[in-house]
């Protein structure tokens, strides 16, 4: 153990990005009292995020993982890469929500600070080297997201979403704690690295209790990632929550869930790979199947995107199943790409929202290309990318995951995934068909704002660039995770 026995001021160093973001969140609460215009609050939130991003960038260069707070917290390339995803998610979400929350009449400064607190929770999760810290990070993220999902409290759907999310989230926390306590009971530690050592030292690899503990932990993360059969909450919550929050939580908690899933399974339960792959493979197949097939029958675009995000979780899980660090790399790569294309798609959905018109039905996209060709073209790109059609980034993400899967010898899984991917093309391309081949039903008015344009520009450009030049992102992921 390289941990000191006392706390020093140097322990704060790896924690600086989180600290910066938390301070930004606290400042926003106070700022909201003074400043009337919410745009300024949002801008300060983005500035705080960029400051945290800068801190992460400055700390990025250390090849060796830095442990702090008695081995509770670790800063390494793996966590830093996931933090990058969280920052992007946060900035893009803030950009697409300024105008939208005004229309929803739920514009308040706390909205932005809660977004920031949720992101801090995700960062703490990604950097957790101890199951206790992991759990607390998860609760910080989850609690903020429950509130955000119910923020438009005049709408019953939103209340329903918040309640459902809360109940099932509390349930999954229960699973996580059961899993942690079983593991702790058997190994005598909650430290992720020490668990791996203890499993070897005490020779409890075959213990059914440890197996059960591992399953409980996987189930808990499965809830957060929305893996089948723990995906039930996702469609209702995604539909009911304000659309900007749907975008936020279809990326953030999912990425955080994958970050901890990778860390716990690879570091703590690294010796039990056979056991956990046997749990994950059926889950992955079921997730892809349910996500792709049920999405076919959806008429609400948010519900459809919810099922699509379930299906994508299945593809991402394949990288974990591959069981190699390279597999994990491909998952992280996919997550980053997914961030751009998914938030981009939600941004278009948000643009259709205006006073007195929800714009959430797939029918509402009829003939969008006639009235707003640019918006339709953007949606086309995002839909192609979500389907995985080259030359968009979505193709690259899927390609690398499948490649790593085949390298690890799971060719049959890759074949299944390709089949479901083909099925999913149907519902993505249906939207394209509605936009380009149908006549507009009624006049479509698009609400836009400068920040929205910035978000759309970033997502669209990134989806295209990463589709054509994937090596840039891939090198970054490899450098971060493989060293």
């Amino acid at each position: 153990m390289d941990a000191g026995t006392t706390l020093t001021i140097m322990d704060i160093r790896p924690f600086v990005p989180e600290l910066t973001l938390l301070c930004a969140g606290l400042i926003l609460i106070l700022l909201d009292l003074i400043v009337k215009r919410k745009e300024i609050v949002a801008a300060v939130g983005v500035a705080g995020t960029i400051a945290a991003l800068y801190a992460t960038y400055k700390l990025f260069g250390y090849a060796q993982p830095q442990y702090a707070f008695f081995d509770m917290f670790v800063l390494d390339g793996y966590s830093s890469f996931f933090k990058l995803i969280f920052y992007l998610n946060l900035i893009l979400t803030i950009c697409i929500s300024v105008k939208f929350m005004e229309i929803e009449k739920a514009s308040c400064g706390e909205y932005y600070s809660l977004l920031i607190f949720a992101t801090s929770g995700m960062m703490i999760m990604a950097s957790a080297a101890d199951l206790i810290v992991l759990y607390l990070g998860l609760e910080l993220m989850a609690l903020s997201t429950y509130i955000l999902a119910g923020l438009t409290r005049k709408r019953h759907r939103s209340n329903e979403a918040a309640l459902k999310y809360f109940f099932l989230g509390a349930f999954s926390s229960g699973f996580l704690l059961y899993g942690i306590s079983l593991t702790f009971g058997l190994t005598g530690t909650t430290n992720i690295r020490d668990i791996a050592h203890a499993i070897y030292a005490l020779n409890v690899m075959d213990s059914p209790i440890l197996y059960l503990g591992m399953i409980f932990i996987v189930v808990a993360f499965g809830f957060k990632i929305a893996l089948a059969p723990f995906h039930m909450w996702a469609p209702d919550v995604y539909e009911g929550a304000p659309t900007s929050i749907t975008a936020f939580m279809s990326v953030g908690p999912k990425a955080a869930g994958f970050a901890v899933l990778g860390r716990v399974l690879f570091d703590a339960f690294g010796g039990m790979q056979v056991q956990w792959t046997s749990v994950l493979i059926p889950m992955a197949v079921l997730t892809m199947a349910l996500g792709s097939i049920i999405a076919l029958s959806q008429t609400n675009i948010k519900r459809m995107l919810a099922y699509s995000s379930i299906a994508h979780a299945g593809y991402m899980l394949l990288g974990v199943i591959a069981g190699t660090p390279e597999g994990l790399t491909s998952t992280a790569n996919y997550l980053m790409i997914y961030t751009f294309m998914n938030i981009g798609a939600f941004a278009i959905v948000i643009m259709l929202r205006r006073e007195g018109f929800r714009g959430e039905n797939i029918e509402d996209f009829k003939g969008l290309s006639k009235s707003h060709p640019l918006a339709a073209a953007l949606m086309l790109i995002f839909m192609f990318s979500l389907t995985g059609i080259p030359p968009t980034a979505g193709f690259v993400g899927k390609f690398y995951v499948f490649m790593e899967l085949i390298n690890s010898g799971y060719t049959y899984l890759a074949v299944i995934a390709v089949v479901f991917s083909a099925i999913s093309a149907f519902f993505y391309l249906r939207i394209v068909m509605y936009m380009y081949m149908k006549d507009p039903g009624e006049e479509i008015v698009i609400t836009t704002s400068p920040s929205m344009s910035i978000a759309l520009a970033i997502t669209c450009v990134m989806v295209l660039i990463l589709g054509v030049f994937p090596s840039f992102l891939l090198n970054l992921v490899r450098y971060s995770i493989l060293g």
Partner: protein
Amino acid sequence: MTVHQLIFIYFAIAMTGISLLVVTRRNPVHSVLFMLVLFVHIAALYLFLNAEFLAAVQIIVYAGAIMVLFLFVIMLLNLRREETEEKFHRQWPVSAGAVAVLAVFFIMIVSKIVVLPALGEYSIDAIRSEGSIMTVGKVLFTKYLLPFEIASIILLVAIIGAIVLAKKSTNS
């Protein structure tokens, strides 16, 4: 069999019985009351582990604050009509089945249980020599400082959330 074992067996059986009573009562106030009894039993079990601080906190926080709020909400909702409605009792067979499966699973696990040596530095004797409050305090503010501080942020978020969701609408 020592006195300690006998007392432990009493608590184990009583807690199981009380938990069953909690979930089987139709009147929610009775359930809450049994829950209260359960918490007192749990506190007594903590005393067995020389965790006196935890025992006191268990009563103060769970019995003193959380269950009172439970009662408060139940009383305000006035559930006397709902409790007789059948639709809230339909899930019985399903949950009984789930419990049975889980019980079989647990029995299988328990039959394979391995008794490990005591792990960790905080054995009962170590705690007894220093006192429970002292031990908890020291560990909480050194080794578990980071989790402690994160918990404070979580509480802050909970407060903000409660206010945001419950405050009167101010938009003009």
